[in-house]
């Protein structure tokens, strides 16, 4: 339950207007703490109960740990032209990583904002009359439950699939242990001849790697807090749980990597989500909350740059087409070359040419799509500035390998935006300098003990850094950091336990949740207004001679996003707008095709379609335009 107070109000609400279709006043969810998976489910159920005409809750699957995976559908079912399933949809997803609990809070707030505004707020009202919003606020309940809400607090991104990580035929038999009994898993440092780490002379609370060039030599080995439960001389190498869901999606998937899963979409959660999306091809936009901030950093990986797709034509085709095999072209140019050449019969589509060229999967944002992402990035930066939020832009993480966000763009083929909501603020300039002088390791040089938590994308156990120390002191009352304290370890001998507290790096303290989720939720609400639309702007009839008419139809996209992304068209995730002109038996199409296909209409753009028709004066024809991601429109034209 959300809180005792809200529970009472919920019950009152139930009693008074349970059967009414009108939304009823429900007390707000108070985001003064992180809500557990059970509480998130209860909140969703409350929404469904209290907004019967607007909110529908469905169960799309269960986690290996048995937790429900919910999707809340929000639409004004009583209004609008089309059934909710046939309307363009926006999918909102959160916390696929399990440790990004603030994402779930934001998704709940977003749902609440939509539902409370469904009648009173004209913009939201219009949105929900024409579109449908699917909200999945907690996609990795196993990791959330056991990492944050269990008896022991530890950062974890893996679900509850049992894996034998160390291949000793026992499953999950050697995870971390809370040796100092402080209720959380931190680090152990042990003096070891092989140790590569030293105490940072500039900031003794931090550990850093020794730099042999400066005459330093390593002193410590770092481990995650724990004992060697299975007596194999490895520590915490087979913790409970298995797959990091945000590495289990099929774009840029890492084969043969334990944490990524044995194959893409191998987990119940990832499969439930992908199945849901495949079954709901009306989804035209995905808005995600995760530790990835792709609004500010839309690189495919930390290395790849957004350069767009340029291809070379292989020798054997280059000869046929008469082009230089060394020259690089845009895919579209090569498609045109093939179209003009007659090298192969049938339809010459982009994907067919891409396959022929052996281009493999796309690895960066398509250049045609870039302006959209750049514009949104600019808006987001402005929003941060206006709100006076100090977000450390340099820390914005791009998508990782096998990430959900990457799947949405590269394979599902729709625009996707992801924000991390919050990151540890940067220390002030002078302090940063000091940290740099102290030799802060660049991210790719950070050697962390090879543990599951250490490998997790959120990285609560990364090299401690100065920003976090400052943050802990200034805001967390020092609670973000556990001072190193001696401990007599059963097999390692004297060790010290300490370091950063779990979640300190990923989550702001509960009292700051409300402050930080407001901006991204507002931003996403505005983004929802920008989705592509479909309208027949105008039709014109011109009489050419007795019984011969020219019909012109202006098809427009009143939204701001294009009706399809370039990558969507390439990956087959986008649908063209299909325009059908319906004539009766006394009418005949003289020029133009009965079915036209419009690949894409840019935001605010208009496309002209023309037909010449032989028909009796005063007769009517119908024009239909539709696409699964845009809905359907039609008009009737009288010929005279």
């Amino acid at each position, binding site marked *: 339950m959300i809180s005792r107070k809200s529970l009472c109000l919920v019950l009152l609400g139930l009693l008074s207007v349970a059967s009414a279709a009108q939304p009823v006043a429900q007390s707000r969810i108070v985001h003064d703490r992180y809500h557990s998976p059970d509480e998130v489910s209860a909140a969703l159920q409350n929404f469904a109960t209290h907004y019967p005409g607007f909110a529908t809750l469905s169960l799309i699957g269960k986690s290996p740990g048995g937790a429900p995976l919910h999707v809340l559908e929000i639409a004004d079912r009583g209004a609008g032209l089309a059934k909710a399933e046939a309307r363009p949809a926006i999918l909102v997803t959160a916390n696929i990583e399990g440790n990004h609990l603030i994402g779930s809070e934001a998704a709940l707030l977003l749902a609440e904002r939509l539902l409370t505004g469904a009648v009173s707020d004209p913009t939201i009202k219009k949105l929900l009359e024409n579109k449908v919003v699917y909200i999945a606020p907690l996609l990795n309940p196993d990791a959330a439950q056991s990492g944050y809400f269990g008896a022991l607090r530890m950062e974890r991104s893996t679900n509850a699939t049992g894996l*034998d990580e160390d*291949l*000793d*035929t026992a499953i999950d038999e050697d995870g971390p242990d809370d040796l100092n009994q402080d209720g959380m898993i931190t680090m152990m440092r042990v003096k070891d001849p092989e140790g590569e780490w030293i105490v940072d002379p500039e900031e003794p609370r931090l550990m850093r790697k020794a730099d042999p060039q400066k005459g330093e030599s390593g002193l410590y080995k770092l481990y995650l807090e724990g004992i060697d439960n299975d*007596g*194999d*001389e490895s520590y915490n190498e087979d913790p409970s749980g298995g797959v990091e869901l945000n590495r289990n999606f*099929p*774009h840029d*998937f890492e*084969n*043969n990597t*334990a944490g990524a899963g*044995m*194959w*893409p*979409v*191998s987990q119940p959660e990832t*499969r439930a989500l*992908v199945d849901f999306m*495949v079954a709901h091809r009306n989804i035209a936009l995905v808005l995600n909350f995760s530790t990835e901030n792709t609004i500010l950093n839309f690189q495919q990986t930390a290395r790849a740059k957004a350069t767009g797709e340029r291809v070379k034509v292989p020798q054997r085709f280059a000869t046929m087409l008469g082009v230089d095999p060394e020259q690089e072209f845009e895919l579209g140019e090569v498609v045109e070359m093939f179209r003009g050449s007659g090298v192969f019969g049938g339809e010459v589509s982009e*994907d067919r040419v*891409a*396959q022929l060229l*052996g*281009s*493999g*999967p796309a690895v960066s944002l398509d250049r045609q799509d870039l302006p959209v992402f750049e514009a949104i990035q600019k808006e987001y930066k402005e929003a941060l500035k206006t709100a006076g939020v100090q977000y450390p832009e340099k820390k914005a993480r791009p998508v990782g390998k096998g990430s959900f966000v990457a799947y949405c763009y*590269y*394979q599902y083929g729709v625009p996707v935006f992801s924000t991390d909501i919050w990151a540890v603020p940067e220390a002030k300039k002078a302090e940063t300098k000091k940290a740099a002088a102290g030799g802060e390791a660049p991210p790719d040089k950070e050697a962390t003990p090879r543990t599951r938590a250490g490998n997790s994308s959120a990285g609560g156990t990364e090299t401690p850094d100065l920003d976090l120390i400052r943050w802990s002191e200034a805001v967390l009352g020092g609670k973000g950091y556990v001072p190193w304290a001696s401990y007599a370890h059963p097999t390692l001998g004297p060790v010290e336990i300490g370091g950063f507290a779990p979640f300190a790096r990923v989550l702001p303290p509960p009292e700051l949740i409300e402050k930080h989720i407001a901006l991204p939720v507002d931003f996403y609400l505005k983004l929802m207004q920008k989705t592509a639309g479909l309208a027949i702007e105008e039709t014109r009839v011109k009489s050419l001679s007795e019984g011969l008419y020219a019909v012109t139809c202006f098809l427009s996209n009143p939204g701001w996003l294009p009706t399809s992304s370039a990558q969507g068209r*390439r*990956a*087959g995730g986008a*649908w063209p707008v*299909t325009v059908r002109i319906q004539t009766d038996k006394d009418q005949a199409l003289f020029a133009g*095709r*009965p*079915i036209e296909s419009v690949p894409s209409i840019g935001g605010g753009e208009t496309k002209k379609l023309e037909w010449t028709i032989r028909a009796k004066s005063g007769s009517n024809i119908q024009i239909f335009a539709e696409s*699964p991601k845009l809905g359907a429109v039609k008009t009737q034209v009288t010929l005279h």
Partner: protein
Amino acid sequence: MISRTTRQVKKLILGCVLLLIASGSIGLANGPSLSFDHFYNHAELTQALQTLAASYPQLARLESIGKSHQGRDLWAIILTSAKNGPPERKPGFYIDANIHGNEIQGAEVALYTAWYLLTSYGTSEQATRLLDEKVFYVVPTMNPDSRDYYITKAADPNSPRSGQVPMDDDRDGVKDEDGPEDLNGDGSITQMRKKDPKGSYRQHPDDPRILVPIRPGEKGEYSLLGQEGIDNDGDGRINEDGPGGYDMNRNYGYNWQPNYVQRGAGDYPFCFPETQAIRDFLLKHPNIAGAQNFHNNGGMILRAPGAKNLGELPLADVRVYDYIGKRGEKILPDYRYLTVYKDLYTVYGGSIDFIYSTLGIFCFSNELDTDPSERGTDRRGQSREDEETAYLRSLQRRLDEMDYYDRVLLGDQYTDWKPYQHPVYGDIEIGGVKKFGRRVPPAFKLAETCHRNAAFCLFHADQLPRLEFDTPKITKLDDGQYQVDVSVKNTRVTPSISAQATQKKLHRMDRLAVRGNGARMLAAGQLVDEYRGLTRKLDTRADSCWVEGGIPGFGQTDVRLLVKGTGDLTLVYDSLKGGTVETVVKLQ
């Protein structure tokens, strides 16, 4: 029960008589008589498998490992004798076939392999030993829906390749609404052509049934209009959304790529019931060490990798593939041993990559049979020919092909061109090669395909790891401790763990354990220099140690143990894929 189609095929080939004689000679004792002169539809296949399982309850067990999309059982027949311990402790050999619906003869090969092993047990030394020491998991058809479609409905040599899960190929919101039709009622989907002065084909000078492309300056006579069919959905296109529309052999979860990179891939790996069932079956039997897929056609023995981005396999594993593959070329004279990405084409998400690179199993895929028109042609020679010679040769080849349909198949698999009134194209002609006319062997050749490929499977299965202990050497030390030198030999080419599995940590390593009165393993080392007594330390538990890398093919691993205990000491070498062997020594 013999289906109509079966009879039709049978009737054409007198060779089946010869065939029965051939089968008779293959050590058939008094087991059930199965014939390999026709193709089994799913009901017949089910019955044949049930008969085998019922006739050999000590050796065979039939298991339904899942259901196809349309609800047909996916059968696995599991073959092994009760000797040498439980099946899951023996090295396993896996066979599947017919993942592509039209590539049907693999099922007969698989069925034959099972039938041969069972009927030869006790009379053939090889079959007996293989069933005693190994376990065979045989899935004759992975795609029973399309198999039945191909055999019983109007189909063509190339389709249905897909399974029968409906797909919206033309993205119009309706699934499978515009497939081909058997307009001329000959039981096959053949071709449509139309007399057309603007066409780009003309009749062959010596045979009007054959159309050849016009050369520059020549006058066109015909247009080809594609496969038989009409525009069912009125969208202006013909046959653009037929049954299914995907490729299950691009749906496996290793190096999988989506449709825009790899056509037919499906929405995500293992999204089809058939590929899921096979995956789960393989995962349930980690003892499988060797595998074989059957496809058609072209006469090939293929191995991984399927795509260049994977790089070459570890050298030690390539040697194993080469050893078996090159000997396979002798067992299968018309077949060439090839690597998929290098010699054929790029495959993302194929079965053999998943089986080898995720599961650590040595796996081949055979493209069964060559088309008669391809036989005897020297492909390398052709590239050096000038254009005119190549053209004349192609004319001759087309004639030879027609000769084959006329004089060998006696016209049974060729429908002569007949006029037809088409709703869109008007006066056209329909005719051409029927569904069994290409890619599948004619019935009189099926038995040879079955036997030779079964023999290849048995050769591969016989090359799975075969482990044995050399007599251990015991040296008594102080304090009741013993030094035990243990050698485990592998007399076959397949290592007990593939190099890929060791490198990528795909499954557990082999384990050497001691059992006995107070037996404890105090220390262990892998002997690397027997003369100087050098060992590499192995991590030990109370009674066992892990042997990383296992036992190499045609090689051995020597381990020196420091053991405590009294009396009999049992040494157990336990390999996930190489089986379990034991030996007993006296500590004295």
